């Protein structure tokens, strides 16, 4: 979100900081995505790691982050399909096999978009302090200022103040437009 162009050029040059950022931004989302596709959470981290290692060993160069996201989600999708196919072939031999999973490319893309949204929301929350995050989590669950203050055993004023600080941090990270948008969510929720 900050310094997007540098991130991509550094990533193409395989610089450490950029790769750590790549993991931070994409890894959890890709794992959750693979878990949804394969309908189990065993082995999904291996799928994602194989894609990442494949990317590291390749000479691929990405023009922008859009292309990077497309490549990552598509790579996980095709590996997940392979896993489903192998697993189903072996399970068909067992009697208790009851369902079959199929994913059209269209469904897979929709699912990837969902997971990507959640990933971005996660990054917004990750920048906040623990108390701010607790406040934000409770407000995401639909609690009011008074209820949050009671749950966390802090004053209503602290809740309001922390909310303002969190808002400032998010604005700094996401840029001015995001800040304006977030103002709405913060004031709606609290």
């Amino acid at each position, binding site marked *: 979100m900050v310094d997007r162009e540098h991130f991509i050029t550094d990533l193409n040059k395989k610089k450490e900081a950029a790769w750590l950022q790549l993991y931070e931004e994409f890894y959890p989302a890709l794992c959750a995505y693979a878990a949804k596709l394969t*309908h189990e959470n065993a082995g999904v981290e291996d799928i994602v790691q194989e894609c990442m290692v494949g990317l590291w060993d390749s000479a691929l160069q990405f023009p922008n982050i859009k292309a990077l996201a497309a490549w990552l989600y598509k790579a996980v999708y095709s590996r997940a399909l392979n896993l489903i196919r192998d697993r189903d072939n072996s399970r068909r031999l067992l009697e208790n096999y009851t369902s079959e999973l199929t994913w059209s490319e269209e469904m897979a893309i929709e699912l990837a978009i969902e997971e990507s949204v959640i990933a*971005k929301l996660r990054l917004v929350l990750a920048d906040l302090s623990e108390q701010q995050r607790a406040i934000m989590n409770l407000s995401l669950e639909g609690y009011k200022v008074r209820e949050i203050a009671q749950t966390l055993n802090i004053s209503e004023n602290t809740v309001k103040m922390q909310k303002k600080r969190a808002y400032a941090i998010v604005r700094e990270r996401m840029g001015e437009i995001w800040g304006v948008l977030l103002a709405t969510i913060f004031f709606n929720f609290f």
Partner: protein
Amino acid sequence: MKTWDDIYDSSDKILKSILEQKGEEWQLDGGASPDKLNNRLQQQFQYNPFLAYQKLKKHRYRRLMRWYGMAAGMVLIVGFAWGWLQQGADREQLLTETICPGNKKAVLSLADGSVWYLGDTVMTILTAREDIRVDSNGLSLHTHNQTAGNNDEVCHLLTIPRGGEFAMTLPDGSRVWLNSESELRFPLHFAANERKVALTGEAYFEIEKDSAHPFIVETNNSEIEVLGTDFNVRSYRNEKRVVTTLVEGSVCVKNTNNRILLKPGEQSILDETGRLWKQQVEVYPYVAWKEGRFVFRKQRLEDIMATVSRWYNIQVQFEDEEVKDITFSGGMMRYEGFEVFVKMIEAIGSVTCDIKEKVVFIAKHR
């Protein structure tokens, strides 16, 4: 239709509309309610990107090594030196590294063939017929539609490995606590006339009262029928007996040719020959595991070690036969380290324990 290239920009737009509270543009499993969003966030939080990045670094490291064989040789030498130095480390330090008390973990195999590893992480598994939720209370099922599929016999399987424990809530609200190395087979919906589950290993049941639908626990070679009560069942295959201890209410234990009715404070035992009898017992030692305690009353060391080894996931080797028959009374918290247990039996039982990796050798103290 959207393409892969649209993922990044589309998700930006959708996040903005979520934050602007325009939920109608965004369908996430039937609506972006805050609760659903939070659930999905929790799912992503269970994957640690930093650990994964360390693994990638190891991969890079291995590639480098291929080119620099010399360097690899150096590392080998350093490695030997380190290993040699490590031998001096004292026993307790090694102990805590390799032998740990059990914790919350289980493997859930769903009827559709998918497999889920459960632990401390909050998660929701969505299937066509129900939501399966895992949180601090363990596992619970939330059916979408009560009437649908009432006649199907589809069963899920919850397996607790050695060194694990897990709790769950059945569709009727009954609670089950499962001890290490146990397996519970339970249906999506209970049948119309009875509530039936199958158990191997050890479990504590708190059954909701419902006289119209008797609750039945199937074990290796017997059935336990209950109406509404609290009781503990221990039926490990390698112990070749089924021990049912009743805390409250009443249960009926039956095998092919016999049946016994238990009152609170009574315990039934079914041995491998098919003999079934009951006795009066002090209940607490048999159910203390559920409260996080080991409690032993004049128990043989061999039996104690069978229980303890499941929880700490260790192997036990007796060097002297007579040691097996030493009896102990005592108790400790299950979540204490294994060294606490070792100190206890060494102090009061005149035995010595020698620990190598995950094997404990117990010998007479000389």
